[in-house]
């Protein structure tokens, strides 16, 4: 094996995938009750499940719920509003492509751009620092994503950025929200598929107290089709056997302790505080904010962010009627929501579950429930 492409392709072997799919179907059947509901808490698991069409291949008795794991979905409306308000106040904003179309109270960053706001899409925080270096005017990096991404922001902050570089942190920390989901009354979630890349930073050991407290199994999984199928199979086996443990099915990237150097930088720059996650709940310690030491580049402290101007002509807060939290807990279906398919549609989403490409509501909107895409034979293109 000399090339990364070839090595990764090993995890995209359809023959092995089919064997895992069949084993998964048998394991779900062996649990002896349907549906078995498990949750993944990772936007990239969503993307991979969607992209490879895995959802259509999962057994009908298995309900894989999209949890609060996609930063695009759970970045709360007031946080988007802060970015939009800054852009409308004439401040140049740099952010990741994911955030541009996410709606705030009345506007997205794309809308602010249409009104003359300056929004730069960057692939890396390092690029935002570079943009700031090229001029004297203030540049605010609207920082979103979980600990994996926050680590990069922390590294940039510690690398002595130019004085016109500021950070508006909407970073989130995943472990606390799993507690919220596990503690939801009547939750049907019987196990978690944890995000391999976040766990690369935090280590799988971070889930041990959670497992001990809630007696729910956690499997850390990677993002190729075989990684996801193997992770689900392991998780269902744990559910079937009633074993609440943490299993690391992504050992090529995840260790028990995680990346200590990254953790050290993360906590040197950020501190966890409680905050609201879109459509879910107030999550204690779920938001990452800059420590006081870095106040001089904290956009919240350095700019007068005027949110009232945004709220003056805003439509009524539909978010109040959103039941995303219950849908994620597996208690309610999208069709139980008064907004579904009316005020809340893929091109004008209200809650997290309609924002994401693999959100439960978006899937129901596209497929009307479980994707049934077979029934008319093979493609026969080759």
């Amino acid at each position: 094996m000399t090339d990364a492409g070839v090595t990764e392709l090993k995890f995209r072997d359809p023959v092995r995938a089919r064997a895992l799919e069949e084993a998964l179907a048998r394991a779900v059947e062996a649990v002896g009750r349907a549906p078995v509901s498990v949750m993944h808490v990772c936007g990239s698991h969503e993307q991979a499940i969607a992209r490879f069409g895995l959802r259509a291949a999962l057994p009908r008795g298995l309900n894989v719920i999209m949890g609060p794991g996609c930063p695009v979905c759970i970045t709360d409306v007031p946080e988007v509003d802060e970015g939009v308000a800054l852009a409308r106040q004439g401040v140049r904003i740099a952010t990741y492509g994911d955030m541009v179309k996410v709606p705030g109270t009345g506007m997205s960053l794309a809308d602010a751009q249409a009104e003359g706001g300056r929004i730069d899409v960057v692939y890396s925080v390092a690029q935002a620092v570079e943009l700031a270096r090229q001029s004297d005017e203030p540049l605010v990096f609207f920082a979103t994503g979980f600990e994996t991404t926050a680590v990069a922001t922390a590294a940039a902050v510690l690398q002595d950025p130019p004085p016109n570089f500021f950070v508006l942190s909407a970073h989130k920390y995943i472990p606390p929200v799993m507690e919220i989901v596990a503690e939801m009354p009547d939750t049907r979630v019987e196990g978690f598929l944890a995000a391999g890349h976040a766990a690369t930073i935090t280590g799988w050991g971070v889930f041990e107290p959670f497992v001990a407290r809630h007696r729910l199994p956690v499997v850390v999984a990677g993002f190729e089709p075989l990684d996801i199928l193997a992770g689900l199979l392991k998780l269902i086996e744990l559910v079937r056997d009633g074993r609440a443990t943490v299993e690391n099915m992504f050992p090529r990237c995840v260790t028990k302790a995680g990346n200590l150097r990254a953790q050290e930088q993360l906590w040197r720059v950020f501190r966890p505080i409680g905050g609201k996650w879109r459509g879910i709940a107030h999550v204690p310690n779920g938001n990452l904010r800059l420590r006081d030491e870095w106040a001089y580049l904290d956009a919240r402290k350095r700019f007068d962010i005027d949110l009232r101007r945004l709220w003056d002509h805003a439509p009524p807060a539909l978010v109040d009627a959103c039941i995303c939290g219950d849908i994620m807990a597996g208690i309610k279906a999208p069709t139980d929501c008064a907004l579904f398919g009316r005020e809340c549609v893929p091109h004008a989403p209200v809650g997290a579950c309609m924002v994401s490409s693999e959100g439960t509501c978006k899937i129901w909107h596209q497929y009307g429930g479980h994707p049934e895409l077979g029934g008319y034979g093979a493609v026969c293109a080759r």
Partner: protein
Amino acid sequence: MRSVLDERITLKYGAGGEAMRTLIRQVFLDGMAPAPTNGDIGLAAMDDGAALRVGDRWLVVTTDSHVIHPIFFPGGDIGRLAVSGTVNDLAMMGATDVLALTCAVIIEEGFPRGDLVRIQQSIRDTCAEAGASIVAGDTKVMGRGELDGIVLNTTGIALSDHVVPDSGLCAEDVLIVTGTLGDHGMAVMARRHGLALDADLRSDVAPINRLVRAALDAAPGAVVAMKDPTRGGLASALHEMAEKSGVGILLDELALPITAPVRAASELLGIDPLQVANEGKAVLGVRPEAAEAVLAALRAHPLGRDAAIVGRCVAERVGTVVLDTGFGRRLVTEAEGEPLPRIC
């Protein structure tokens, strides 16, 4: 209920997807001439161009404005794009012999004269490749900051004996793409957003009227629908064809021709190559019995070397495009706005 149409026109309305089609229907078709009853293809058909009956032949007309950043990109420039875009739109209607093109140029104050000369040379060379010539033009200059560099508009006219619409697909028809997918959009994107990607990514921008002629002649009457997958990529083109034709489409991911660098850049940036623009490709709907003959004719042409059968039409799930990934199946969705690099 919130309208699809926001109060302000954001970039998503220019991305060639459902939002743009809605904008056209709601704003531009309002009060315009209804669909002609004499068989002509007009604005309401929202096809690649119009086709008007003239005697026993068709006069095909199309127009296209071109803006691109950067103006010069690997594999082409805005001049080559302006000629190819319009020649290809004519060809998608079956009109492969271009009668004439017009070219209007709007230039920003301060634009380098040398760049203008380069663009003109590129226009000339591309016209020669396509067997076309520019017969009328217009030049405007606007103040600095009133537009970004340069805008080109080209209009094309052609006479044709037969017209191929984008709505002629039936169940069991075979879908052929004339070459690799996503090259143009990915080459341009790699130069934008400060991505600093070092890769062999080149735009496929080219006039393909002669390639299309070869395909049409290989099996007369058997090519029943054509579209060039420009903005919005193959995903948008197939959605539109499926919707207008009243069929479903089943695609085979493993048969899609995509170069290694485009595939790699797609992985790295989290972008679906099916949603990325092409500027020298077509997707053809072909009667099943003629598929091999059309494929052979395409592959015999230098611009069609990588042509491939990528899917077929079905009677089920009308208006949708389903992709068989080898692991399972998924609906192919249209891009909502310009594809952007993502982190999750």
